[in-house]
C-alpha cells in the first residue's frame, strides 16, 4: 500500500503529463492567443472600412464638389437690406425715413428710457465695459448677484441665473439637464433657440402638434407602453416637456393648466421658455404662470430673454435652487462665456425697478395689443395669427400664392407700402433650411406701450390698405 501511495505522489509531482488532452489544447490556444495579441497593431474601430481600394477610388471619382458660394438671386433678402440709423426706439429711421416702430421687441418701451440709460451710464463709469471673464472665473460683479437676486424675487422663485446672451439661455439650459438617451416632448412651433438646445442635448425628441394636448397625451401614452416593456431603461430615462409661454413663431399661448395635469399624470418635467411672455403677461408681468394663476413652483424651469421687455441684453433662468444651481457648473453658456457687462446688468435692474413701480404698464400693453388686434380682423386675404393679448403676432396670407418665394415677395410689398407711409414692419425671418418645421411666411407686428392709440389705428388702417392694394 505504501508503495502505491508513493507512486501516486510521484505521479502527482509530474501531473503535467497526466493533464487531459482537451486541457492542454485549450492552454495551447490561449498561449497562441497571447502571442498573437502581443503582435496585434492598435486600431480605431471606426477607422476600419470594408471598402476595397478600388471602391474608394470610385467613390472619390463620383464625388461632385459644390461651389463654396452657391448662386444667389439678386432679390435674396440678405442682399436687399434696410439701413437703420439711430436706436430702434418708438421712432425708427429706416433708409433715412422716420417711421413708427412696429418691428422691435421693445414691448415696455424701456429701450429709450432715461432712467435705464442713466443707470447704465453710472455703472459704466464705475465698472468699465467688459468683465473679461466668465462668471466662475473673476467675471462676477456685485450687480450680477443683485440682478439674480432681483429676478428671483420678481418671479417669486428661489434662485435665478443670468446668461450673457438671450439666445444661449434656453439653448444652454436644455442640454444641462437632458442628455443622450433622455426624452424630450416638444411643441412643433418651438423657437429656434429651443431647437438648437435640443440639438446640443442629443436627446431623443418627440414633437407634438402645436398646442395640441391630445397629441401630446398620445405620445406620452405611447411612451408609457414602451416603458412597461423595458422598465429598467425607463427608470433611468429623464423626460421633459418643453413649451413656450407665448410662442415666438405663432403668437399663441401654451395651455399651461392642461400641461400641468399631464406633467403630474405622466411624471414629466416642464421647461417653460418665457422670452415673449415675461414682462408682458400677468398682473405684475411675471409671465404665463401669473396669467393662469399657477404656482410657479409647479414649473421645473423657466427661462426668459432679457432682450425683449427688459430692453437689456442676456437672459435668465429661474426656479428652485436645487435645479438652478446645477447650471452654474453645467450651463455651457454660463460657464464658458464672458459674463454680462455690468452696465447691462444695471440697466436690467433699473428696468425691473420701473416694472415694479408701474404695474399698470402691463394692462396698458394688453389694451393696446387688443386694440390693434381687433382692428386687424377681417382683412380679406389675410389672417391674424396669435392671441389678442400677445404683443407680437403674425399676419399670414389666407391662401398661399403657390410658392413660398412669391408669398414672401407679396408680404414684402405690403411691408414696403407701409414703410413708405411711416409704419415700420418686418417679416418674421427664419433660417429656412435649419428650421425643423418651417412656419409659413408672415408679417410680424410688434406692439409697444409707447405707441399711441392714433398710431395703432393708423398702422392697422395702413396694413388694411396695403393688403387691399397688393392682394386684389
Amino acid at each position, binding site marked *: 500500500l505504501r508503495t502505491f501511495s508513493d507512486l501516486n505522489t510521484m505521479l502527482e509531482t509530474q501531473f503535467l503529463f497526466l493533464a*487531459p488532452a482537451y486541457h492542454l489544447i485549450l*492552454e495551447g490556444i490561449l498561449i497562441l492567443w497571447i502571442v498573437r495579441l502581443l503582435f496585434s497593431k492598435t486600431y480605431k474601430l471606426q477607422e476600419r472600412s470594408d471598402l476595397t481600394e478600388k471602391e474608394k477610388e470610385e467613390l472619390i471619382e463620383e464625388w461632385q464638389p459644390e461651389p463654396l458660394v452657391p448662386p444667389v438671386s439678386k432679390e435674396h433678402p440678405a442682399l436687399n437690406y434696410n439701413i437703420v440709423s439711430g436706436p430702434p426706439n418708438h421712432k425708427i429711421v429706416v433708409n433715412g425715413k422716420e417711421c413708427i416702430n412696429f418691428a422691435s421687441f421693445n414691448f415696455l418701451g424701456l429701450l429709450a428710457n432715461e432712467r435705464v440709460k442713466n443707470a447704465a451710464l453710472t455703472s459704466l463709469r464705475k465698472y468699465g465695459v467688459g468683465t473679461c471673464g466668465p462668471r466662475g472665473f473673476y467675471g462676477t460683479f456685485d450687480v450680477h448677484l443683485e440682478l439674480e437676486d432681483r429676478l428671483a424675487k420678481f418671479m417669486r422663485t428661489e434662485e435665478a441665473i443670468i446668461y450673457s446672451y438671450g439666445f444661449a439661455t434656453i439653448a444652454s439650459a436644455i442640454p444641462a439637464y437632458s442628455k*443622450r*438617451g433622455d426624452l424630450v416632448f416638444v411643441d412643433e412651433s418651438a423657437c429656434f433657440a429651443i431647437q438648437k438646445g435640443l440639438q446640443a442635448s442629443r436627446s431623443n425628441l418627440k414633437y407634438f402638434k402645436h398646442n395640441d394636448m391630445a397629441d401630446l397625451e398620445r405620445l406620452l401614452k405611447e411612451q408609457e407602453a414602451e416603458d412597461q416593456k423595458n422598465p429598467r431603461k425607463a427608470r433611468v430615462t429623464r423626460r421633459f416637456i418643453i413649451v413656450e409661454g407665448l410662442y415666438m413663431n405663432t403668437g399663441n399661448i401654451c395651455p399651461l393648466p392642461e400641461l400641468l395635469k399631464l406633467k403630474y399624470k405622466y411624471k414629466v418635467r416642464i421647461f417653460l421658455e418665457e422670452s415673449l411672455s415675461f414682462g408682458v403677461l400677468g398682473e405684475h408681468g411675471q409671465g404665463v404662470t401669473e396669467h393662469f394663476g399657477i404656482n410657479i413652483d409647479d414649473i421645473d424651469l423657466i427661462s426668459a430673454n432679457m432682450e425683449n421687455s427688459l430692453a437689456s441684453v442676456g437672459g435668465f433662468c429661474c426656479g428652485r435652487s436645487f435645479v438652478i444651481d446645477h447650471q452654474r457648473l453645467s450651463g455651457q453658456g454660463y460657464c464658458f462665456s464672458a459674463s454680462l457687462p455690468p452696465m447691462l446688468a444695471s440697466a436690467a435692474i433699473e428696468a425691473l425697478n420701473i416694472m415694479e413701480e408701474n404695474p399698470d404698464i402691463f394692462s396698458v400693453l394688453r389694451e393696446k395689443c387688443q386694440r390693434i388686434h381687433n382692428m386687424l380682423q377681417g382683412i380679406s386675404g389675410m389672417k391674424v395669427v396669435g392671441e389678442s393679448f400677445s404683443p407680437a403676432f403674425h399676419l399670414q396670407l389666407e391662401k398661399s400664392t403657390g410658392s413660398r418665394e412669391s408669398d414672401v415677395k407679396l408680404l414684402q410689398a405690403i411691408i414696403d407700402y407701409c414703410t413708405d407711409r411711416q409704419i415700420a414692419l418686418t417679416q418674421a425671418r427664419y433660417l429656412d433650411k435649419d428650421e425643423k418645421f418651417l412656419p409659413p411666411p408672415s408679417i410680424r407686428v410688434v406692439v409697444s406701450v409707447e405707441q399711441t392709440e392714433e398710431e395703432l389705428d393708423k398702422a392697422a388702417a395702413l396694413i388694411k390698405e396695403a393688403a387691399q392694394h397688393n392682394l386684389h
Partner: protein
Amino acid sequence: VADVMLSFTTFFFLHFRMQVGVAHSEVNPNTRVMNSRGIWLAYMILVGLLHVVLLSIPVLSVSVVWTLTNVIHNLVMYLFLHTVKGTPFETPDQGKARLLTHWEQMDYGVQFTSSRKFLTISPIVLYLLTSFYTKYDPVHFIINTASLLSVLIPKLPQFHGVRIFGINNFYPV
C-alpha cells in the same frame, strides 16, 4: 506578511499621491486611468494580496484557493470592466459614456492598446497558473474556464458595444 503589506501601502501612497490633484485635460478620465503610472503593478499586487489572504484560510486546499482567486478576480473584473457603465466624473460628453462599459471607454475605444493587451493577458496567465495548481482537475477546469470566458469574450473587438442576449442592455443610473 505585515511587512509586505506595509511596503505595499507605502507604494500605493507614493504612487497615488502623485496623481491626486494633477491637472489633466481628459473629457472623461476613465479613458486614461488604466494608463496611469503604477496601476498595472498595483493591480498585480492586489491579485497577489487576494491570493495570500485566501491562502491564509486554514480549511481551504491549495486547489480551491487558486480556483477562488481566479473566480473572484474574474468576477471583479467582469463587474468593473464589463458591467458598470458610465463614469463617476461629470463629463461634458452629453452622456456618451453613460452607454459604455469601462472597457469600451478605455483609450477612447482604440483596440489592442497596451492597457487592453495587459488586461486581456492577465486573466489568461492567472488561468494557466490556476490550471497548473488545480492539477488539471475536470471540475476546477469547468469552473475556471467558464469564469475566464466571461472576461475574455467581452474584450474581443467584435463585441465592442454588443450586448449579446440583451445582457446588461439597459441604461445605467
